[in-house]
């Protein structure tokens, strides 16, 4: 650069040089986030990131920092923000314990392909490898649970590395990227000219931009030939914002559609073509249709074991079309006949236009017979439960939540029975509304995730459905909610048990309830109050709706609603281990219940 100027300045270059301020590494880290358009950073300070925090302080309000109460909370909050807004979530944590605390959240984001950039402080480069104070090999620890990670050893590489991190996190199949920055790289006294690189070329990384048209045509032909077709959509349809073309395609064809836990809302769940969720706790009609289909159209789904049941029994009669942006997802667990690698939104849009051009229509007679069969399966009423129970049934609580919120809600969840009940009984009509940890199944996710959701959508209704065991895993974040006045509603389905564990022990361990009873619970109402929030408890079914209405009417308050539910309820239907989709356990009938 300087020698260039000495040769006689190129006017463009001089102008650029004038725009290149001298910044320290710490200032570059913050400026790069600002240039990236980052709105919120979820973080927690410590020695290795103090220079960065100081640079953040000096920039005032250019970027908003949210101080969580545990680094796990930072990662889940950034993750919830990303899931609800479609933007990249950002975290800033210190070295050593800061980084290790973040690992659970990074892995959670990794398994659900959520774009995160996690900046971790590291000990200064000269002491790396010496077991220095708060040193861990962050790049080593996080390697198996990130899309990619970087250790930035040179100040000159910092801006470009941060740019790469954002690009990698958000492109192709999204995922978390860790940028580990040693403290000396952020030294406030060492400054270099800063420019944020807009254009990037990573020679070894070229995610697919479009699907292969020949393959897409083949897929459309297969759909038109099908007699018993079904769409099976996953988280990829939500992540790629494919809801609109997907809905159009499914409606144009008139085919039934089912979804994984992660894909709920990509197609309106109240629509009659939607068969409910599939898989372990999916509906009878969705799973039976999967078993009987002759043409499975998988869109942004990954054939997870909770979805397929025993692989040998999976879709035995089907020709399988699989659309995914990640080639390694295709034919990983199940062999497919028509693979299409590409972003699902663009592929589905191409499918639509090819379908329209072809002027073809599916076989209406066959389709009518298929729907007749599906309606017969629907008639089984696989999610029936005892509506006359004197105790609040968890299913009833979720139905009431739907009624009170008019279906217009961002709902985060923890992990357990409450999560399944929410997925079964709260029909989401829009994507990015149902926010839960599907892949890793991380208890403690719900509350911090709701913080990110609420910050991303300040005017929206946001609730977290949880269990009394899960909520305690990140309960400290109630303080964060207070500090930032986040009016989240926690709906605690309090069954006194790690319900999902208890259910498995009941079914598979002859009711030996080893350590699944959640003893010594706090008084959640008092606990919420002690954090400065509103706490409420409901025990009677007939008081639930009014209590929920009261809670949601407090538009600017965080309300913790402790709902005491039937401790013995189980999640049905269920496909047990080693079974196929056609071998579901249905809920016991009333008389069977009485016998038991």
């Amino acid at each position: 650069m300087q020698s260039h100027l000495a040769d006689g300045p190129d006017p463009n270059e001089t102008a650029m040089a004038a725009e290149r301020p001298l910044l320290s590494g710490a200032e570059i880290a913050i400026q790069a986030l600002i240039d990236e358009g980052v709105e919120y950073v979820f973080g927690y300070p410590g020695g290795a990131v103090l220079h960065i925090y100081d640079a953040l302080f000096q920039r005032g309000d250019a970027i908003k920092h949210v101080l969580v109460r545990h680094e796990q909370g930072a990662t889940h909050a950034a993750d919830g923000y990303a899931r609800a807004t479609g933007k990249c979530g950002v975290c800033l944590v210190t070295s050593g314990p800061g980084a290790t605390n973040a690992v659970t959240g990074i892995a959670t984001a990794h398994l659900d392909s959520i774009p995160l950039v996690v900046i971790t402080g590291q000990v200064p480069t000269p002491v790396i490898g010496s077991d220095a104070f708060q040193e861990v090999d962050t790049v080593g620890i996080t390697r198996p649970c990130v899309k990619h990670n970087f250790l930035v050893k040179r100040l000159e590489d910092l801006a470009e590395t941060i740019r790469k991190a954002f690009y990698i996190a958000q492109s192709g199949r999204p995922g978390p990227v860790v940028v580990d920055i040693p403290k000396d790289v952020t030294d406030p006294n060492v400054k270099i000219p800063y420019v944020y690189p807009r254009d990037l070329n990573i020679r070894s990384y070229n995610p697919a931009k479009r699907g292969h048209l020949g393959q897409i045509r083949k897929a459309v032909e297969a759909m038109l030939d099908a007699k018993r077709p079904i769409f099976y959509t996953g988280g990829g349809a939500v992540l790629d914002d494919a809801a609109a073309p997907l809905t159009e395609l499914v409606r144009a064809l008139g085919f039934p559609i089912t979804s994984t836990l992660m894909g709920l809302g990509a197609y309106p769940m109240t629509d009659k073509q939607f068969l409910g969720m599939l898989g372990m706790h999916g509906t009878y009609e969705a799973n039976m249709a999967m078993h009987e289909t002759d043409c499975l159209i998988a869109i942004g789904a990954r054939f997870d074991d909770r979805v397929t049941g025993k692989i040998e029994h999976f879709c035995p009669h089907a020709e399988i079309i699989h659309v995914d942006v990640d080639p390694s997802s295709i034919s990983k667990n199940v062999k497919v006949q028509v693979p299409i690698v590409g972003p699902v939104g663009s592929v589905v849009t191409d499918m639509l236009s090819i379908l329209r051009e072809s002027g073809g229509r599916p076989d209406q007679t066959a389709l009518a017979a298929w729907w007749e069969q599906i309606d017969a399966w629907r008639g089984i009423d696989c999610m029936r439960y005892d509506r006359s129970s004197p105790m609040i049934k968890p299913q009833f609580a979720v139905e009431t939540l739907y009624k009170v919120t008019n279906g217009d809600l961002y709902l985060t969840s923890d992990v357990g029975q409450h999560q399944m009940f929410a997925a079964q009984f709260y029909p989401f009509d829009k994507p990015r509304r149902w926010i839960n940890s599907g892949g890793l199944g991380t208890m403690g996710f719900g509350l911090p995730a709701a913080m990110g959701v609420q910050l991303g959508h300040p005017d929206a209704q946001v609730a977290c459905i949880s269990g009394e065991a899960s909520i305690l895993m990140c309960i400290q974040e109630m303080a964060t909610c207070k500090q930032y006045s986040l009016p989240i509603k926690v709906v605690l389905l309090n069954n006194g048990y790690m319900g999902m564990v208890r259910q498995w022990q009941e079914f598979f361990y002859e009711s030996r309830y080893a350590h699944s009873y959640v003893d010594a619970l706090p008084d959640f109402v008092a606990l919420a109050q002690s954090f400065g929030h509103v706490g409420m408890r409901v025990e009677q079914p007939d008081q639930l709706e009014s209590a929920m209405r009261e809670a949601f009417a407090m538009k600017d308050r965080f309300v913790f609603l402790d709902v005491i539910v039937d401790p013995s309820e189980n999640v049905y239907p269920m496909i047990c281990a080693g079974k196929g989709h056609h071998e579901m356990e249905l809920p016991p009938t009333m008389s069977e219940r009485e016998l038991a």
Partner: protein
Amino acid sequence: MLVENEAGALSRIAGLFSARGYNIESLTVAATDEASLSRMTLVTSGNDDIVEQIKKQLNKLIDVVKLQDLAEGEHIEREMMLIKVKAAGPDREELKRLTEIFRAKIIDVTDASYIVELTGASRKLDAFIGAVPEGLITEVVRSGPTGILRGAKGLTL
């Protein structure tokens, strides 16, 4: 495989194999004529589906620039071995003869030992080890195979 010549690239690849339960039978790595790239030859095993999945997973790693499955085409494989043998009395002659038959080289000599260098297909190295009389082998060092596709086309960017 052509791989970014960066700290961590090797552990990403090794980590992928251990995390997903794939075998690494051997792995050789060294710099290439292009300073920013390393070349690796990795030998693994599994049925077609597994090998296909291994290739996809490797390609997904950001540090893997290019990958070629040598088993898909005509290729050449070479491995190098250094083998230290006890060479005293009549064994000295016998070992020398063996070395000639295998077109190997004796590269270090003491009163009591030879070091033999042998390059070739892995099977040839196995055969040499098998041919050395019982009890004479002190030490075996093998590089693991490296490979290249036959013909004019190269694995380049």
